[in-house]
């Protein structure tokens, strides 16, 4: 599984990246976590509000920070 956190580098986006890493550590899933800060690449996902989470090229959340619990739910589905 390939998880990307989209964000231009603000505090919220960093928090989100942290939460994603915690969630991945919790559920024992084979996953890479990457932070995408390049605005051109972020726009390719059609996201207008950051932070956003992309799992296997699919935007699953945008515009708000998900909690660890919510991310766990997303990646175990």
């Amino acid at each position, binding site marked *: 599984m390939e998880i990307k956190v989209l964000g231009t580098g603000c505090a919220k986006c960093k928090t989100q990246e942290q939460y994603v890493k915690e969630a991945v550590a919790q559920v024992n899933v084979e996953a890479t976590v990457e932070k995408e800060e390049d605005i051109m690449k*972020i726009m390719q996902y*059609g996201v*207008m509000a950051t932070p956003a989470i992309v799992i296997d090229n699919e935007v*699953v959340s945008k*515009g708000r920070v998900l909690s660890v619990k919510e991310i766990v739910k*997303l990646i175990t*589905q």
Partner: protein
Amino acid sequence: MKKKIARAGRVISFSEGNHRSFPIMITLLVILLSILYHYLPGLIDWFAYDLLSLSSTSHIGKSIHFFFYDTIKILILLFLISGVMGVVNAYFPVDRLRVFLNTKELYGLEYLMASFFGAVTPFCSCSSIPLFIGFVKGGIPLGVTFAYLITSPLVNEVAVAMFLGLFGFKATLIYAGSGILMGVIGGFLLGKMKLDRFLSEWVKQIQNNAMAENELWSEENTTFIDRLPIIIKEAWGIVRSVLLYVVVGIAIGAVMHGYVPENFFTAYLSTDKWYAVPLAVIFAVPMYANTAGIVPVIQVFVAKGVPLGTAIAFMMAVVGLSLPEATLLKKVMQWQLVAIFFGTITLFIILLGFLFNVIL
């Protein structure tokens, strides 16, 4: 990919079960907060003057009273307002606004729409660039995008809660109303100036490939009850994230309240000095201060003799325009456009300041 996003919207419906009791809990919470809000003055009187046995005329007594009363009042207001804005956002997110602006013939009302939604969406400076690009990509005129961009940092839940708590209803209405109006007029004028040539090269390319995204905004199938926990959680998150700024801002305000003499600022910033407003605004533009931190200080200025118009103009310049924002905008536009944008808004804020000093 569009389809995927729409589908993904439904993935995020975290029904955590047992939400039958949720509406009751929310109602109870709101009633409880309202009661607390209503009895707060008496409660703080008792706390400061009886429990701590401070004199209501002493400096320390006044400062302590101001600090506790205003902090609690503002936090309650902030929580409630964030909740209301959260509900609006859940039903009308910015993606939907974009589709709406694209598909409907609005006869100029699009400026008002964009400006109004700039006011109700929570502003995060790091979101302004993706948003700007998103609008350009969707073929929305630059002027309409500017209308959103002007109002978004200016009118937000924190500013509204702080203004309500410290200046009352009338001043809040004036602040929010003029902020939205400024977005409309500013956006309209900037749109008329044909500034597209000053966008960055890569943004121009996006603009040339712009497509009106006509697809209907796919309604999420989550029920209101399912969403409420998330909305409440986010409102609480906003309160928590500005808590420190509110406390520090009000603490500074409280100290100034007790110790700065009456009419201290009048000598420098009174209405009869024509340069007071421009000076306050120009001084404030490069400054960036957290809204929560700046309003309590402004309130002290006003209490000590600075005209409200000058104070509002100062505040607008501090939160609406800043150097960090300029550097962000520099990524999507050439410096000429950043300068025109900042110049226009600065001018508007100065004019507003004069206007308020005359009519208020």
